[in-house]
């Protein structure tokens, strides 16, 4: 803490200029004005600092003081993060609600982690052990499935001089001392880390395994990996948030970090009401227990919105460092970019494309660069991963705008949402012609080895049929469907069946909402059985119209909504019905 103070000389919206701050550092946290609002230095020129203020600035008067803290914007990392909800600068919204009021007033500041709560600490090292950053000192069982590793903070190494015995401790109590020469480090269960710097890793590895999301079109056609990056752009109402919620619910990650960045308050309320009632399909635990929510809604201070993605990714890195697979959703990265633009506009910086600052592209790249599968720090050989899924909200739904374009240069998976699909309530409204995944090959290997040998072939054939459909549709637009040869009509019908029976998936249906990898494969197999029979029928001069009228069509369309415990009987029933109905046609 330095006592040196500056003086406010200008206030415009969330941006404050102060002079007399020679010696202050970039990104240093300062306390602004009489109410000591939290702010961060974002530019320095001579002794004048530009400060973005994380709270409403109404009433601030030039002449008031700015106090330096000597610290950068940092988060507290330790037991108590899971299941919590924070604003963009890690203020705990639940406690603020309990202690203050339903509306967030200025100056409401509380520690991010409970200082009173006692945690059961189980030591994993002994006195005299040599440790370095990333090594596990002990564990706290934070939920039945998540053991929270208490690690040596990055940058510290030496011999264990003292380690607390098994017992309960608060996060402020010293649980270990590490000695290195004549330097002694007292360690608690909490680390602080500056959000704008990535936490170190030993080595970056290539992603290998799919992140199974239970969303058929994603897992089958446009898969993402553990450690991969994906962008999901689309106009308003096309389903970005629902897809992100679906992933937060069902993706087979250990930890979920969800950042509501400049979006709706009610969507956060939705997560808070729904997630505690849902069970993790893998562990049976309430889904909320593996989740950290950052909620800086559109009407909350814009500078804190800018910070929220960094707060989120730093928390994600911390759990990755324990060796977990973390999935992070940012909804929406466009609002983050707009926060940058808004602040930059107030600074009267030279604007780049569409008023965004020239550094937009590099900020986006730096953020996604913090994703990945890695060998974590410490003496073990453990790996961890962060998968990042960013929503993008292009103005007018036009993908040529700067945020979408800059994001596409970085991410490996692109789920393009389409308003036409959303209008006809085909959800997820992921356009299968525009979307892509660059992880197809790695992921294909996993499916073939773990789920079924035909997966790669099925996937390829599906894509092919959908592409053919698109070409044929162009012809139909000119001449109508009736003049097409029977083979082409059948292609159209097959593609339609894929769309309606496989790709469409209703998020709010209790069973359709999630399809595990095994069921996805069995559904595909069923469809291809159907197609094989249909091909044979055509050879017997049966028309597509006749096939289309088979009652089994509706049963195929409902495969996704069959309850888990009835899958075997129902699917067997469909198979029998299918065979019988084709037989009746003479196949």
């Amino acid at each position, binding site marked *: 803490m330095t006592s040196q103070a500056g003086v406010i000389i200008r206030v415009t919206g969330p941006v404050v200029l102060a002079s007399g701050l020679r010696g202050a550092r970039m990104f240093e946290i300062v306390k602004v004005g009489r109410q000591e609002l939290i702010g961060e230095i974002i530019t320095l020129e001579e002794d004048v600092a530009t400060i973005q203020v994380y709270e409403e600035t*109404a009433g601030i008067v030039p002449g008031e003081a700015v106090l330096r803290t000597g610290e950068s914007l940092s988060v507290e990392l330790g037991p108590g993060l899971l299941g919590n909800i924070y604003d963009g600068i890690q203020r705990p919204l639940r406690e603020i609600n309990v202690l203050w009021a339903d509306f967030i*007033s200025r100056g409401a500041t509380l520690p991010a982690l409970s200082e009173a709560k006692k945690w059961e600490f189980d030591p994993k090292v002994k006195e005299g052990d040599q440790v370095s950053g990333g090594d596990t000192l002990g564990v706290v069982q934070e939920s039945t499935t998540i053991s929270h590793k208490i690690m040596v903070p990055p940058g510290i190494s030496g011999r264990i001089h003292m380690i607390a015995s098994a017992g309960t401790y608060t996060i402020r109590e010293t649980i270990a001392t590490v000695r290195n020469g004549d330097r002694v480090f007292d360690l608690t269960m909490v680390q602080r880390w500056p959000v704008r710097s990535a936490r170190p890793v030993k080595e970056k590895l290539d992603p290998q395994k799919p992140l199974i999301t239970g969303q058929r079109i994603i897992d089958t056609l446009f898969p993402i990996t553990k450690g991969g990056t994906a962008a999901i752009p689309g106009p308003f109402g096309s389903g970005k948030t629902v897809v992100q919620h679906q992933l937060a619910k069902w993706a087979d990650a250990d930890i979920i970090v969800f950042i509501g960045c400049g979006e709706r308050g009610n969507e956060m309320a939705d997560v808070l009401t729904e997630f505690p009632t849902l069970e993790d399909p893998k562990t049976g635990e309430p889904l909320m227990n593996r989740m950290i929510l950052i909620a800086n809604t559109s009407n909350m201070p814009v500078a804190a919105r800018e910070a929220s993605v960094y707060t989120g990714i730093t928390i994600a890195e911390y759990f990755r460092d324990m060796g977990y697979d973390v999935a992070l959703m940012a909804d929406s990265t466009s609002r983050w970019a707009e926060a940058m633009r808004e602040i930059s506009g107030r600074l009267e910086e030279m604007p780049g494309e569409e008023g965004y600052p020239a550094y937009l592209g590099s900020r986006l790249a730096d953020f996604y660069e913090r994703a990945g599968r890695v060998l974590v720090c410490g003496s073990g050989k453990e790996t961890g991963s962060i998968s990042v899924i960013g929503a993008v909200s292009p103005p007018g739904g036009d993908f040529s705008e700067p945020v979408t374009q800059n994001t596409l240069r970085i991410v490996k998976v692109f789920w393009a949402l389409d308003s036409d699909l959303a209008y006809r309530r085909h959800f997820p409204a992921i356009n299968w012609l525009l979307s892509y995944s660059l992880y197809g090959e790695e992921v294909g290997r996993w499916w073939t080895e773990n789920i079924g040998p035909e997966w790669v072939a099925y996937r390829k054939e599906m894509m092919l049929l959908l592409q053919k459909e698109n070409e044929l549709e162009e012809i139909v637009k000119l001449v109508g469907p009736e003049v097409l040869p029977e083979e082409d009509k059948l292609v159209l019908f097959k593609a339609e069946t894929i769309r309606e029976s496989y790709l469409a998936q209703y998020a709010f249906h209790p069973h359709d909402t999630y399809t595990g990898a095994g069921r996805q494969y069995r559904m595909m197999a069923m469809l291809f059985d159907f197609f094989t029979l249909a091909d044979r029928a055509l050879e017997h001069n049966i028309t597509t119209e006749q096939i289309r009228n088979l009652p089994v069509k509706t049963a195929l369309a409902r495969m996704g909504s069959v309850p888990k415990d009835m899958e075997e009987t129902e699917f067997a029933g469909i198979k029998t019905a299918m065979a019988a109905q084709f037989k009746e046609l003479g196949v």
Partner: protein
Amino acid sequence: MAEPSREYSTVSKVVGPIIVVDDVEGIGYSEVVEITMPSGEKRLGQVLETQSTRAIVQVFGGTRDLDTDITSVRFSGEIMKIPLSGEILGRIFNGIAHPLDGGGPVIPEEMRDIYGLPINPYAREHPRDSIETGISAIDGMNTLVRGQKLPIFSGAGLPHNLLAAQITRQAKVLGQEEDFAVVFAAMGITHEEAAFFLRDFRSTGALERAVLFLNLADDPAIERIITPRLALTTAEFLAFEKDMHVLVILTDLTNYCESLREIAAAREEVPGRRGYPGYMYTDLAGIYERAGRIAGKKGSITQLPILTMPDDDITHPVPDLTGYITEGQIVLSRDLHRKGIYPPINVLPCLSRLMQGGIGEGRTREDHADVNNQLYSAYAQGIKIKNLVAVIGEEGLSDTDRQYLAFTERFETEFIAQGQYEDRSFHRTLDIAWELLSILPQSELKRIDTRFVAKYHPAHGRHQA
């Protein structure tokens, strides 16, 4: 801040709605300002930027007749507040909360900052009580829920006012008889439009439970910046202090955004899309997010903002940014209007994001979600075939295609279309839907659970619940 008020006559510059006052000291950001014109007339302003010895002020009454010589500016040391009390129901004000109804000033129980504070997301309760508006295109397809913000995207000359008035007349939550109130904010609408709403509110008795803030077409444009905030501050007071269910109608947001643009231009800010300021999303969110429910509180705020899409273009920044903030939208169509269909709601681009939690068994009816889904898919299919027919004629169509065409025609004329005073129940709406869906072969009803087909399809002996 609490500085005593200070007066200066050092206006050095006037640009559009903005003035620069020099040689000042200790001016707070966002402070309220009173400007005294050479004629003695007083106008209201607010500090947009403050520097050590200079303040930049937006003048709500406009800068006409303002000079740099005599004009004096008094800084109040306060941020903008509105006096509120339970007695405010039934009152009519202008766009800056001066009474227009001959009544005296409001005797405040409370003075409230008009910018409000953000609701803690943790304090919000997810809205679930569906509102029956009696309008099928809304109730059946895009159910409105108490605490939702659902704008009407309209175009010049389309009957959005009739629709808003009909919703106000008919809206009810089944099985609940509770305190309601209407807060109405006009921004730049005509006298005629304002008179229409007044007449309608009066005829139904809603006027006694309404608070009106009227900034009309010939009122100062910059005042529009504060009109919706006055309305929403009033609504928050009524909802969360007085336990009322408040319906807020804001019209027309496009005029509001014009005023924002005017200020941004006068300040020579870097413009965003089509000249609107880059912070318009944040600014609009500061309005639209002031809706919802709070856990443990009885009242609610439901917002029904109206905006006209310039050139009927839904990608224009005003509807676009609105759609990105609100919980869906009701979109009016010129085509349907030309066909004589009222309400001319094009359901395809419409959405109600909160519908899911408000419908279904125990709320509206068990088959609602499936029927809604099926209607969407069938209508979209029908429209696609219709467009095809425009090119190739009807000859090349299959029987099923023809059935879709018939469905689509009747969907528009029997389901969407209804009388201005026709109030349909949820059940009636869904029954009409089944009637129309029965035009299609049953094998096409893929999105409806077989249980519901068996129970509600007219071919299976109509169930009347």
